[in-house]
């Protein structure tokens, strides 16, 4: 009891709890305020000592202290050592400048706190001053206009057709096929009007869009042409394989003169095979 001197009462700062502070900067600002000097003329060294004392005290009470407090403590300890050492021109960053930046950060936080207080002290709408509770909407809606554009119209058309198409059971389009008889009549009707050679295509019925119907008509017309050539009424000619097939009204001895057969070799072989 009387032996070892009772430990000196811990400095007052040790009682500062970290609970009330929103992070290291908040505590530093509080310590700076306690210096009661213009924040620009702050003693950074004193501030560092106070902060480190608080952290040391807090560590004695609780072990777990959030990392950011310790990071700040380490940085401040480093800053303090740099501030105490003679200036070293080799150093990239000058300790005084770093201390100045810290002071500026604290000053900015202090300024923003002052701004928040300034705002908070103003009469606020909905608190100290009230706006009209039931504003009148002096607006009349004119709903006579129409919002519709061309893309929407076209989309509507495509969608209507597509939906209707999907709904109907599949029904193949009935084909209108040109018969050989019809082709014969068409050929006989037209061939007399032709002064010279004419392409087979010219004797097809008009306005045939469907490719299948068009090929069928071509085939029927070719057969009709062959039929007529066999009867000697017309002559057929084709210069190259898959080239245009030409025909004209037969003339006396015309076939030998032109040296072209009524039919192509392939057609002959087909005939032979038939």
């Amino acid at each position, binding site marked *: 009891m009387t032996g070892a001197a009772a430990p000196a009462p811990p400095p007052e700062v040790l009682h500062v709890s970290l609970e009330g502070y929103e992070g290291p900067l908040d505590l530093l600002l509080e310590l700076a305020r306690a210096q009661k000097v213009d924040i620009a003329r702050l003693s950074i060294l004193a501030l560092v000592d106070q902060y480190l004392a608080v952290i040391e005290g807090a560590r004695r009470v609780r072990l777990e202290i959030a990392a950011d407090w310790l990071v700040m403590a380490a940085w401040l300890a480093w800053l303090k050592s740099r501030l105490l050492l003679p200036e070293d021109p080799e150093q990239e960053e000058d300790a005084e400048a770093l201390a100045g930046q810290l002071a500026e950060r604290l000053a900015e936080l202090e300024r923003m706190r002052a701004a928040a207080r300034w705002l908070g002290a103003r009469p606020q709408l909905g608190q100290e001053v*009230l*706006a*009209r*509770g*039931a504003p*009148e909407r*002096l*607006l*009349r*809606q*004119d*709903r006579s*206009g*129409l*919002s*519709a*554009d*061309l893309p*929407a*119209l*076209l*989309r*509507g*058309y*495509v*969608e*209507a*057709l*597509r*939906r*209707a*198409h999907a*709904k*109907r059971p599949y029904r193949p389009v009935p084909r209108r096929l040109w018969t050989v008889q019809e082709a014969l009549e068409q050929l006989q009707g037209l061939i007399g009007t032709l002064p010279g050679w004419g392409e087979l295509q010219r004797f097809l019925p008009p306005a045939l869009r469907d490719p299948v119907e068009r090929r069928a008509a071509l085939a029927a017309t070719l057969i009709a042409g062959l039929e007529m050539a066999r009867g000697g009424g017309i002559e057929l000619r084709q210069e190259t394989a898959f080239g245009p097939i030409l025909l004209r009204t037969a003339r006396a001895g015309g076939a030998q003169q032109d040296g072209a057969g009524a039919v192509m070799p392939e057609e002959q072989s087909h005939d032979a095979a038939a």
Partner: protein
Amino acid sequence: MTPPPEDPGHDPAGIAPLEHALRLAEALVFAADRPVPPERLQELLPPGLRAEAVMTLLAARYAGRGVQLTEVAGGYAFRTAPDLAPLLTRVVEVPRRLPRVAMEALAIIAYHQPVTRPEIEEIRGTSLSQATLETLLEHGLIAPRGRKEVPGRPSLWGTTPRFLEQFGLRELTDLPRREELLAGEAQPGLGPGQGMAP
């Protein structure tokens, strides 16, 4: 208009409390989101001042002004003076959208005109209500084009100049051709990659 500076020591007529009550009533009615019943004001008034009397006096002060104190639905509310409301009312255009069905019917009429309602139904593959046709008529987008000489003599429908205007067309032939719209869809099984080698 500003109440004279008040000296509480010299207010034998009791004007200061009345002026205060008027200010309070004015602010309360202004800030309330619904008409203020006199009882609500009464709660805030010193004894001896009747809310109805204060409201009546306040209404008199606003007489002839741009806003008026009116008694509505069991309470008091400020309202724009009736003669000013038309001057201040702004007209906002809220264009309506055509319902999808109407848009589709309109598109079919545009492409197939003159066309009867049964024909539209045939193309859409579903029935078309009279109301939809009427919507299009109301907007002036379609007009009758005589009758089709088939049993029942149904009306034929076509689009109007108003239709061209609405869709920014100079003439009907400005509409894309059907084949352009349905490219690749009209011929199932003949899409790219499935072509027949010669």
